[in-house]
């Protein structure tokens, strides 16, 4: 009997039927995921689109398509993370006094952890990498990134991380130790289930993907700019990506180390962060924030880049204070490594240490302030048109400034002791990440959507989205500042009625509902715009009167992006070309592009099996998948011709066909 049991463990690890969801809300979540997956598979099969999907999308190495895939995943995850948020706020509005609400305490903690993990790693990061993939090569006047195969592989690793987090909803459970799963709570002794392992391996695999992307974009920016584009002639978005990716390269290895050490503690019994055996749990908190604080700027710098493009375009002026903007980015990159301790002033490192990190935290607000003023001065005396991207900017300035001031307030250690781990902090960082990053992603999507898909999003619905999101966001988070001052802590699943917090929690819940309506309008906007795509077609390639090189290409951008690589003499090159009348010239050249490769998908599949094997302690599977990945890389290395050449004549033919089609549209609509 024991032998059978041992054999079953060797074969299946911790997997068993009892790991399926036990209560109705969990079952609902699992069913939603399984049914959603079946629906997608069914639809594709019904439409007989598998071959098309495989050829055109899954195996593609075109950064524009990879970018679209990132954004699709990120948007679906926004719905999942938003659903989590709705559950949390419902629980907090109901679970007062004798009522225990709709969720058990442990389940509530799992949802909190999943919400944070998903929103940071699979929504904010997903949107960011998506937009970078779409826009960066075009802005640099390049056809591709430096390492296309690695780029596709990064996407699949990101996808696998996402799949693991959502897999935990179907079988097993997720970490209940918070989105950064601090030990000793996350150690095996206190979290014996697979929840923390899901968290570790999802982030580890997605994190490696992000690190590879970081290297990739860094090299792309430094080595692949169009001739003539010196660093100081780069569009500001490219600068912000350069800053962000330098941070990825220096911060993500720290995440890899930290997660690996926690995994070792849990699997082979090392004593890095355990409470006994000579471990040091505070070291984990230091290590994870040595990654975590730069991560905040990894997310927000590209968002700053988006604002720089949007504000300049919709004010019809060149960006105010370009040089100071560049230096502000550089300053943020350096300073972001000197502030991590402000996440745990209460650790008790002593007054001198806390004072240093407090001052550095206040200092890092300065370059950020410089940027805000630069954007405002760009608007000053500009001919501003308030299209939706610009509306998002207005919401951003208001919310980001409120959140930022709250952040500077908390940089004073004495004040931080009062509000540490309270809802005040939760309100602060949501205003930074949602107001700063997510709003920028929405603005960017509206702004660059016609470039990628060839038609504009519905403007009226876009405004509705903006109003519901913006107002809903303020209604949802301003009460949390007040609650934080009243002593409400984060991750709170139950409180006494005598505290008088319930009305504010209900207001916050109403805010979440408003945001929900906003999201519904977003889906409607997308559906309606696709429905009416022929009326909304962008025939010019330059729907917003843009300034940078991506607008010099037609909409949608052909897979080869540029018929001839541009030569750059100006910061706002396309604007300069339009002024001098050079923008309409047609020239062709031979083009070299990467071939499709299925091996990125294979590596992703094997990484998924590896992750699942590690989570469930099915070590033979983990080992085999790892060997499989090595074998796949060797097979890839045998490929001496990963690229193909397209002659100038073919390009010309394709271009003429495109122009003919364009004329037909024009004739049809006149």
């Amino acid at each position, binding site marked *: 009997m024991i032998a059978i049991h041992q054999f079953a463990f060797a074969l299946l690890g911790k997997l068993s039927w009892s790991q399926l969801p036990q209560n109705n809300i969990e079952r609902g979540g699992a069913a939603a995921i399984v049914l959603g997956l079946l629906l997608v598979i069914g639809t594709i099969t019904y439409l007989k689109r598998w071959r098309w999907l495989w050829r055109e999308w899954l195996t593609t190495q075109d950064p524009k398509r990879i970018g679209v895939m990132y954004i699709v995943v990120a948007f679906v995850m926004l719905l999942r993370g938003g659903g989590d948020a709705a559950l949390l706020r419902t629980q907090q509005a109901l679970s007062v006094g004798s009522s225990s609400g709709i969720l058990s305490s442990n389940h509530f903690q799992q949802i909190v952890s999943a919400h944070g993990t998903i929103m940071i790693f699979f929504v904010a990061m997903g949107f960011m990498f998506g937009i970078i993939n779409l826009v960066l090569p075009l802005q640099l006047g390049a056809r591709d990134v430096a*390492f296309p195969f690695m780029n596709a592989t990064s996407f699949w690793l990101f996808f696998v991380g996402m799949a693991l987090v959502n897999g935990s909803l179907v079988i097993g459970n997720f970490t209940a130790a918070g989105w950064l799963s601090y030990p000793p709570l996350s150690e095996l002794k206190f979290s014996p289930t697979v929840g923390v392992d899901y968290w570790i391996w999802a982030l580890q695999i997605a994190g490696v993907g992000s690190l590879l992307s970081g290297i990739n974009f860094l090299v792309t920016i430094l*080595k692949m700019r169009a001739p003539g584009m010196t660093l100081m002639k780069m569009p500001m978005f490219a600068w912000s990506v350069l800053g962000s990716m330098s941070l990825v390269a220096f911060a993500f290895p720290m995440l890899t180390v930290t997660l690996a050490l926690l995994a070792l503690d849990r699997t082979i019994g*090392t004593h*890095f962060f355990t409470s006994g055996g*000579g*471990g040091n749990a505070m070291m984990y908190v230091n290590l994870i924030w040595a990654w975590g604080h730069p991560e905040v700027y990894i997310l927000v710098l590209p968002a700053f880049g988006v604002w720089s493009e949007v504000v300049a375009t919709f004010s019809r002026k060149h960006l105010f204070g370009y040089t100071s903007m560049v230096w502000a980015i550089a300053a943020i990159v350096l300073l972001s490594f000197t502030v991590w301790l402000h996440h745990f002033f209460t650790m008790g490192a002593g007054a001198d240490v806390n004072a240093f990190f407090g001052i550095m935290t206040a200092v890092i607000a300065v370059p950020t302030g410089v940027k805000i003023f630069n954007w405002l001065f760009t608007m000053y005396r500009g001919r501003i048109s308030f299209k939706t991207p610009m509306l998002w900017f207005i919401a951003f300035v208001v919310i980001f400034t409120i959140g930022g001031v709250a952040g500077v307030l908390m940089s004073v250690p004495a004040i931080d002791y009062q509000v540490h781990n309270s809802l005040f902090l939760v309100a602060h960082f949501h205003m930074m990440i949602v107001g700063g990053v997510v709003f920028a992603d929405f603005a960017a999507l509206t702004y660059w959507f016609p470039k990628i898909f060839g038609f504009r999003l519905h403007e009226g619905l876009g405004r509705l989205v903006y109003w519901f999101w913006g107002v809903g966001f303020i209604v949802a988070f301003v009460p949390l500042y007040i609650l934080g001052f009243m002593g409400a802590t984060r991750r709170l699943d139950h409180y006494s009625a005598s505290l008088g917090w319930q009305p504010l929690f209900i207001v916050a819940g109403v805010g979440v509902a408003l945001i929900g309506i906003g999201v519904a309008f977003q889906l409607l906007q997308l559906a309606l715009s696709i429905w009416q795509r022929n009326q909304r077609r962008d025939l010019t390639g330059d729907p917003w009167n843009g300034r940078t090189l991506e607008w010099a290409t037609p909409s949608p951008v052909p897979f080869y992006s540029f018929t001839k690589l541009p030569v750059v003499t100006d910061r706002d090159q396309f604007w300069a070309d339009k002024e001098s009348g050079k923008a309409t010239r047609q020239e062709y050249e031979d083009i070299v592009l990467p071939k499709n490769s299925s091996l990125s998908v294979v590596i992703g599949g094997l990484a998924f099996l590896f992750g699942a094997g590690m989570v469930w302690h099915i070590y033979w599977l983990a080992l085999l998948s790892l060997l499989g990945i090595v074998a796949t890389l060797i097979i890839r290395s045998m490929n001496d011709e990963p690229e193909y050449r397209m002659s100038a004549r073919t390009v010309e033919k394709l271009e003429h066909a495109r122009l003919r089609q364009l004329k037909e549209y024009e004739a049809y609509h006149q």
Partner: protein
Amino acid sequence: MSETAQMIEQRREHEAAEKTVFGFWVYLMTDCVLFAGLFAVFSVLRHNTYGGPNGHQLFDLPYTLGETFALLTSSFTCGLAMLAAQRRSKRAVLFWLGVTFLLGLTFLGMELNEFHGLIRAGDSWRRSGFLSSFFVLVGTHGLHITFGLLWMAVLGVYTWKKGLTDSIRKRLTLLSLFWHFLDVIWIFIFTIVYLYGSLNV
């Protein structure tokens, strides 16, 4: 192809190779940060022996010095392989790569033997925070060496089959960068873990 087209093509290939080498440097820097993290962890946990042995009691310096010489010499022979690649001498490249491989294997064998001895004596990573950080820091370097040996074997086969083409020489450059990098990391491990750890302080 016309002469200018050929020139453009050569330039493109040269730029592509330059891009790869630069990208590899960036990767090495990220790996450097990874090791920096592990060194920091080791420094924090160095004295957390939890009643178990410390480095002074465990480390055998002459043995580790032997390991060090094996690895440093392999770095030197790897350099000789690169010089041979520049001379386009395939046989010399294969010879020196072979020597490098054997020296690397020797280093790895000695390290595993050291680990084996420690574990048999009951001083595994489970014993204390200090030993956890020791095994993981040194072991991560060992894993890199293992990967490097695998890479070297594969590239050796390619060199033998395809000869010293531009692509192969580029890959040899990357491998040698990796190998020298591991050498540098080892110097730090030898100094901080073994030499400093052997002091009874």
